[in-house]
């Protein structure tokens, strides 16, 4: 489904600020995999997400999606196959446009945009039934501008929009991090439901260790641009935060210090 083959990326190469962001990343997602990614700040999680989505291109290495080499494919072309939800609730929707217009844009993701009306009667019904699954009463506010929604509502809408056209892969980049705990839980539940229902192959970055353990069938831990730990299906079942911390110490020979607080939230 998704394959990262020896991905390397260095920022500010040959300057004093040189930083190796990704160092020989290999990752293979099978159809239906739900992989959670944890790691401290600067571990390279977001860089990896941006590589997959096409916002950044690797210095070396190749990215395969659905068996196709997409390494040099432009971001907007690649996004036909990729659903994305960002950390910032403002980032995934167009605030001055209505809920139904936003959904219409998500709807035409994998089609050629034409001069067909974006929101017609038939689509409106489709949007309404999809919005009902969120249980946020958004189906009755379809002509409200998205800028009027709360952060949680916007993030739920982003999630719905990202999964609307069954993308080959769903990328979630700390999409609950900017929400308060109760809203975050709501979005986490929704994520679980949508991913299971649509059987989406998913890669989710999170700072929340508990969330990383609760969701998905696989887990990877990143540090300093490398994948240092991969936990597969059965193994993941019995995993706890304490075990993860121990594992990190064993591999790196050091405590999860300054970032530990962040990680164990």
């Amino acid at each position, binding site marked *: 489904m998704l394959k990262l083959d020896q991905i390397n990326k260095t920022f500010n190469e040959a300057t004093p600020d040189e930083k190796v962001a990704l160092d020989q990343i290999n990752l293979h997602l099978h159809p239906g995999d739900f992989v959670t990614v944890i790691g401290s700040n600067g571990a390279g999680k977001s860089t990896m997400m941006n590589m997959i989505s096409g916002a950044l291109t690797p210095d070396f290495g190749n990215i395969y999606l659905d068996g196709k080499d997409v390494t040099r494919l432009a971001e*907007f072309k690649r996004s036909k196959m990729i659903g994305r939800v960002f950390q910032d609730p403002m980032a995934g929707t167009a605030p001055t446009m209505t809920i139904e217009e936003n959904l219409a844009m998500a709807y035409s993701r994998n089609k050629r*945009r034409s001069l067909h009306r974006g929101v017609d009667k038939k689509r409106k019904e489709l949007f309404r039934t999809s919005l009902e699954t969120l249980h946020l009463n958004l189906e009755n506010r379809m002509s409200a501008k998205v800028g009027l929604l709360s952060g949680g509502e916007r993030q739920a809408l982003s999630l719905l929009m990202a999964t609307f056209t069954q993308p080959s892969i769903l990328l979630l980049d700390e999409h609950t991090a900017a929400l308060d705990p109760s809203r975050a839980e709501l979005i986490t539940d929704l994520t679980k439901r949508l991913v299971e229902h649509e059987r989406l192959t998913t890669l989710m970055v999170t700072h929340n260790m508990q969330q990383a353990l609760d969701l998905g069938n696989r887990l990877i831990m990143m540090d300093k641009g490398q994948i240092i730990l991969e936990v597969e299906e059965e193994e993941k079942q019995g995993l706890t935060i304490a075990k993860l911390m121990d594992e990190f110490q064993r591999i790196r020979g050091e405590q999860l210090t300054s970032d530990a607080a962040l990680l164990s939230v």
Partner: protein
Amino acid sequence: MFSAVFGSVEQGIIYAIMALGVYLTFRVLDFPDLTVDGSFVTGAAVAATMIVFDYHPLVATLTAIVVGFFAGCITGLLHTKGKINPLLSGILMMIALYSINLRIMGLTTESSVGRPNIPLLNAETIFSKFQGFWSDLGIDGAINGFLSGLGIEHLPATWGTLFLMILVTILIKLIADWFLQTEVGLAIRATGDNKKMIRSFSANTDTLVILGLGISNALVAFSGSLIAQYGKFADNGMGIGMIIIGLASVIIGEAIFGTKTIFRTTLAVIFGAVIYRIVLGLSLRVKFLDSGDMKLITAIIVIAALIIPQILEKRREKARKARRQAERMEMKAAQGGHRIVETGSNQ
């Protein structure tokens, strides 16, 4: 008085097409496009030059629209592919067009070098062609007869131009409304709203910016070609400050009529353009003002249109707060009074 307002309305409706173009870039695409000062003249220059060469005015006007479209596309290319700042791309295209416009009008001279203006005094224009059809209808006589019955003097020679322009402008407005609701239109609006988001939904924002700028400048050039035919004159200086006039129309319209829906906003822009012309026309009737003061008046109108809504909003907010405060005080007084009575009975 009546004839002055009438002239302003006629011109305002023609300039409204330009204002719709400015609305498309400034508001919808969130791209401050200064190409307008150049592409307005380009429209006028292309149409005037072709009319001098005896092309049908309709063909001349359509060509002007196409040339304006390409001018806008080049600004878009400079910004998206050349990674040049939006303001700078527009300014670069604007001054490039200054020379190009001289060259276009220069085609009418023997040596084919630059020419700063073309008079169209006895040439056929869209309006003169339409007049032939219109005067047979006898509507002018009917309206003027009715108005003179009301005691209004200095009636216009014809209502045809006004009717034609209202028809054309409303048609363009409706097409714009429809277009901004299509899939492509939605993507263009989202490009102005949240580029990152619409890119993640497989839209090529570069192409959309180029397309949007093209359409906008096509409208601006259309308006320029009509103004040249209306005033029977194309001049290389006629575009100076055009962007501010367009912006003034957009801001005035939005301030007065609101921006609830696209349908309403585009209508507001058209009214804004007309109101701007009327205000300008009336202010030029003041004795000590000269037509050279026009740009200064324009600047003052725009500043007023930008500041006055803010002041009004602040006042409204204050009034709202005061009202709420008063309500709260009243409620408190009612409760407090009750409590005093209670304590009194306890003692």
